[in-house]
């Protein structure tokens, strides 16, 4: 059935029509939620909330943007709201240093210990980047997701997060540097493992 017809029927309260729409965009909604939230459980919850919100607000959908864009926007907003509510501190910080008896050392994060849910994701690169993002503090991950996934400008991100333009630029820059450092460190670690394996042979 045509998407426009499905939308019209959904606006009239037809649950079956809305279910058809959801089947088409469920994957997109979940993907966005997962990239914001960083884990399957939170992503499922956020995706559900977003789809319920979409059903409640479908009467206000005017078709100015595509339905996919509209429901994607709702999902992103839901995720941002949820992250703001939590205000949780990520276990691993970009600048955090581990205090030891000998002094403080920079934390190194191993890339190998991916969760079982992440193993189900087929694309290795995506899994790897997502894992890296999950290690960041939320404020860094959010700006990077808004920039790279949603394609927002610095100004838009600043207004969305209610922070200054300089803060956004700084966070994006530091998040990118962190990713580069981690990827390089992984390359080095991988190289040393390979060379060690060659010597043993």
């Amino acid at each position: 059935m045509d998407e426009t017809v499905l939308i019209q029927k959904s606006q009239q309260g037809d649950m079956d029509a809305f279910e058809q729409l959801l089947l088409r965009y469920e994957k997109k909604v979940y993907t966005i939620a997962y990239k914001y939230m960083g884990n399957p459980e939170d992503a499922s919850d956020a995706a559900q909330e977003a789809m319920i919100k979409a059903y409640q607000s479908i009467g206000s959908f005017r078709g100015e943007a595509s339905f996919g864009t509209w429901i994607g926007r709702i999902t992103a907003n839901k995720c941002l709201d949820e992250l703001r509510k939590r205000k949780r501190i990520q276990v691993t910080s970009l600048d955090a240093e581990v205090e030891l008896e000998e002094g403080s050392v920079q934390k190194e994060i191993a890339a190998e210990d991916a969760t079982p849910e992440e193993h189900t994701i087929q694309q290795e690169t995506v899994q790897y980047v997502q894992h890296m993002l999950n290690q960041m503090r939320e404020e860094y991950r959010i700006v990077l997701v808004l920039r790279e996934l949603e394609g927002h400008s610095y100004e838009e991100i600043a207004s969305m997060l209610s922070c200054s333009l300089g803060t956004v630029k700084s966070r994006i820059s530091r998040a990118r540097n962190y990713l580069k450092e981690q990827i390089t460190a992984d390359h080095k670690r991988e190289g040393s493992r390979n060379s060690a394996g060659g010597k043993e042979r």
Partner: protein
Amino acid sequence: MPEEKKDKNGQIGEEDLDALLARWAEAEIEPPADLHAQTMARLRVEAQPKKPNKVVSIFLKKKKWMSVAAAAVLVLCCIPVVQAQFGGNMANPVYDMAASQQAESVDSEAAAQTTENVTTTAKQTPVAEADTQNIDQNEARKTERKAVNDTVAPADTPDTASSNAAITVPDVSSDQSGNRSGSADFSEKSQEPAVESQAPAIAMFSLEHSEDSAAQNDVKIRSITEDLDDLQAKAQSYQQALEELQQQLQDAEKKLKEYDEKLQAEPDNTELPDQIKELQDTIDTLKKEIKELQALVAETSTQQ
């Protein structure tokens, strides 16, 4: 881990990172298998209780005045029912039930309680004779109404009336205004063919009642006229007393003028001021008594 290009320091370049992030952004992640089912279950649950909540919110939260208005309308609708229960309105079906009960009881007990002529008329009156019966009934009711209006207290229960009639009589005579309107309604009803079956019994009842109440009313009228005579006598005595007091007042005022003139002629006279004071006191008391008497006269006139 994907192989990425590295710069001189061994770090991957900006372009490589952009490419990596672009791949990450484009990639779609497969949702859990039960996500759709869970979402639809939640949607159905959350969609259902919405409608009753809206109605409740309209009536209880947003528009409380609507519920108040509804309650007021309900009370207004109940007023006629309550009036019929306690006031005995003739237009109410309750009275019709009583009337039909009267008819039944009259049919069975009329021979022992009333004259034979009336009962036979009531029993055997055909539908065609209902009009003449109604005329008699209306005349009887007119006399009854006059008698009721003349009485101060409600009419007593007639001795010869049946138990059903005894219950109905205070209803008829308790509220005079209601009685008038009720009688009017009743006379109109009696002219209608639908109520013709009740007409003989009602006519007989009114005849009985009018006879008894007329006899009692004569006694009461006598007592009232006696009371009225007493009141008139009182009023006359008050009027006479008032005239006497006014005469005394005029005399006192005359004396006061004379004393004033004497005082002007004899300013050295020491007795005159005392006498003038006494006169002024008597004038004040006389004025007070006159006022009180005038009030009494007004009262008696209103009572009359």
